[in-house]
């Protein structure tokens, strides 16, 4: 039964091994559901957030996974709109990652809002002047788009293809996927931007407040750019992880190279823009609001090291690494650079969420500290576990990497030929052949 669901020509572990891999994640997911259930049943008093520290672990998680999940829209845009054909090898995986990230983000938002039964209010009574409304609309619409993009991948399952209706629907939907890619790009552009803009318009929080163009503060553009920059790096990282965990080559080496080059180029542009934005903020925006920028970094542990780490260590350094061909040629360095790039953007979201709220603004404000409650951590872990479960099940039963069969044979012959020194005497005769 299990084997019949696995695509032809790909190797997967035994059902028992797969069950053992899933078990801890299921346990974590159940624990997370319990934590989230407590928050929903008893209220947000289960968290360590309060009226002053209103954004905590969950919003940080949302911002981080939405940025990392940008690989889905950006890969689809590059493949279906700009025709970067190499990315066809990872597009299915990118869609699943996007679906996991956005569904996790929406689920956490439902818990965070605390009144999920009233979640439709935001659609029925929208505040059209709020960036959060735009974020809500775009994220929910994009989740719908991702679910529709995920559908053909599911319908390509070996057994589901035997159902004629599923087969033709998958085929016809796939032919129209460029429409969804375009819509997804439009939605992602605005919600990534609005998430950044949300902080940039906080006049009462001069640590986050930024000037910009017309309606949009600079953070609007920086969030879009940073998400587009790390999306390909995250796809690279997850593909490499899937290869390591499954013990199989899944894509050609060239795909990693293309992802790295795109990510490196965009990251370099982002770092330049971020550096410029920071200089303007330090020298003009913040002083004009009455706050010398150095003041924000006098509160430990948020010293200037965090600014250095965000822009240089996890921004400029990985950008250079991803752009230098000799570094890209070594898988270890390549993966390290991709991981650093992802960490840099996650750090940026942490700074924008947590440091913004922690540093005092008014003269009588104390420096606020916040540690998430175990219920918050549990809900956070549930999202991680949910992601691993959905991705693992998809990896086993769906064709996330269409080149897997081909790459397996290429890598096998490359490895074996090298091992045997290309000497024909070292090769055996296939058991399918007999002597003439």
């Amino acid at each position, binding site marked *: 039964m299990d084997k019949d669901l696995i695509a032809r020509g790909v190797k997967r572990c035994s059902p028992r091994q797969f069950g053992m891999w899933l078990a801890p994640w299921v346990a974590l997911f159940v624990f997370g559901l319990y934590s989230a259930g407590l928050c929903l049943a008893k209220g947000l008093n289960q968290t360590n957030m309060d009226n002053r520290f209103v954004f905590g672990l969950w919003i940080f998680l949302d911002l981080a996974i939405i940025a990392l999940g940008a690989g889905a829209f950006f890969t689809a845009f590059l493949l279906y709109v700009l025709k970067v054909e190499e990315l066809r090898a990872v597009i299915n995986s990118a869609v699943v990652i996007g679906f996991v990230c956005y569904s996790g983000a929406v689920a956490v938002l439902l818990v965070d809002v605390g009144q999920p039964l009233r979640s439709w209010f935001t659609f029925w009574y929208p505040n059209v002047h709020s960036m959060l409304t735009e974020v809500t609309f775009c994220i929910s619409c994009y989740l719908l788009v991702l679910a529709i993009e995920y559908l053909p991948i599911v319908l390509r399952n070996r057994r589901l293809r035997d159902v004629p*209706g599923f087969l033709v629907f998958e085929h016809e939907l796939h032919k129209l996927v460029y429409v969804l890619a375009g819509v997804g790009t439009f939605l992602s552009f605005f919600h990534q931007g609005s998430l950044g803009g949300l902080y940039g318009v906080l006049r009462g929080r001069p640590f986050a407040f930024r000037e910009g163009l017309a309606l949009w503060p600079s953070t609007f553009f920086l969030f879009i750019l940073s998400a587009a920059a790390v999306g390909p790096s995250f796809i690279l990282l997850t593909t490499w992880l899937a290869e390591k965990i499954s013990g199989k080559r899944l894509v050609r080496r060239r795909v990693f190279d293309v992802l790295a080059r795109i990510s490196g180029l965009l990251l370099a542009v982002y770092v330049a823009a971020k550096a410029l934005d920071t200089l303007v903020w330090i020298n003009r925006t913040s002083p004009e609001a009455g706050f010398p920028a150095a003041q924000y970094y006098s509160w430990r542990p948020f010293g200037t090291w965090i600014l250095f780490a965000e822009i240089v260590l996890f921004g400029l350094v990985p950008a250079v690494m991803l752009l230098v061909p000799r570094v890209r040629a070594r898988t270890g360095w390549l993966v390290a650079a991709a991981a650093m790039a992802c960490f840099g953007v996650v750090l940026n979201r942490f700074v924008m969420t947590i440091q913004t709220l922690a540093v005092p603004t008014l003269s009588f404000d104390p420096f606020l500290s916040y540690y998430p409650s175990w219920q918050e951590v549990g809900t956070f872990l549930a999202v991680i576990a949910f992601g691993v479960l959905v991705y693992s099940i998809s990896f086993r039963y769906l064709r996330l990497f269409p080149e897997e069969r081909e790459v397996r044979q290429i890598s096998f012959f490359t490895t074996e030929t090298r091992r045997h020194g290309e000497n024909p005497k070292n090769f055996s005769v296939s058991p*399918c052949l007999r002597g003439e």
Partner: protein
Amino acid sequence: MFPWNYGFHWTAATVIFLGAFYAVLAAVAATLLAAALRSRRDVRAHAVEEIRWQSDFDSLPARDRLCRHAITGELAGRECPNGFDCRTCETHTRLATAAVLAATRSIPAMREKPEVEIYGMNYPVDRLYHRGHTWVHPASDGTLTVGIDDLGRRLLGGADAIDFPQRGARLRANGPVFTLRRGSVRVRVLSPVDGEVVGAHFSGPAWFLKVKPLNGGFDLRHLLSGPEIKPWVAHEIERLQLALAGDAALPTLADGGIPVDDIAAACPGADWDAVCGVMFLDG
């Protein structure tokens, strides 16, 4: 949200914001609806098997989509853009015409005399061959005999069961013609031609179908014939070697012998489901 809602104002911000939102929803709904309507049209037009083949062909590795003229050496590394249906291919028409005009004499593969025995297997030259390991033999009564070729037969050895199409069933080229089963392996064998089944015949261990044309005559331009057969069989043996190369196997010589009669029995450790899928071009 709507003009009758509390707090709704006809302002530019509202119109732009909600307009964009509804445009997105409309685009998504239209995409789904278009896919559903097209699917219904395909099912009603009995295009399911054609779509299955297109889908299967698109998911084949590049080396398995090699054009017949690339296999013979006429064109370097060309991939087939037509799902192995050369009837609509301009390149094939051009090259086939050139072959008739003896221009292909300079191509080594085409110079060789067609052989009946190729790598120890029986490939009679009076038959035409499909890339999915079926053959076609035109009969004097205007019908075609359709069977499975020697390499295909050896791949499964003695099949446990064969599902034949019903008499009167309509076949589409690259749609299913037989379903073979051996153990847990089930493989669909592709039809080499369009036609209507008029009977199934058994001759000892051999079996074949009789097919009559649907519209007056058969168009067999997409099938391999004569001097094309040997390079294609060599190519298929290479593909077989690759398909058999499991993770733990050693590399094997492609010309180290001739295929045994029951390859499946000779290689019990191989993933036969995958091997048959590759060789019979079945998903």
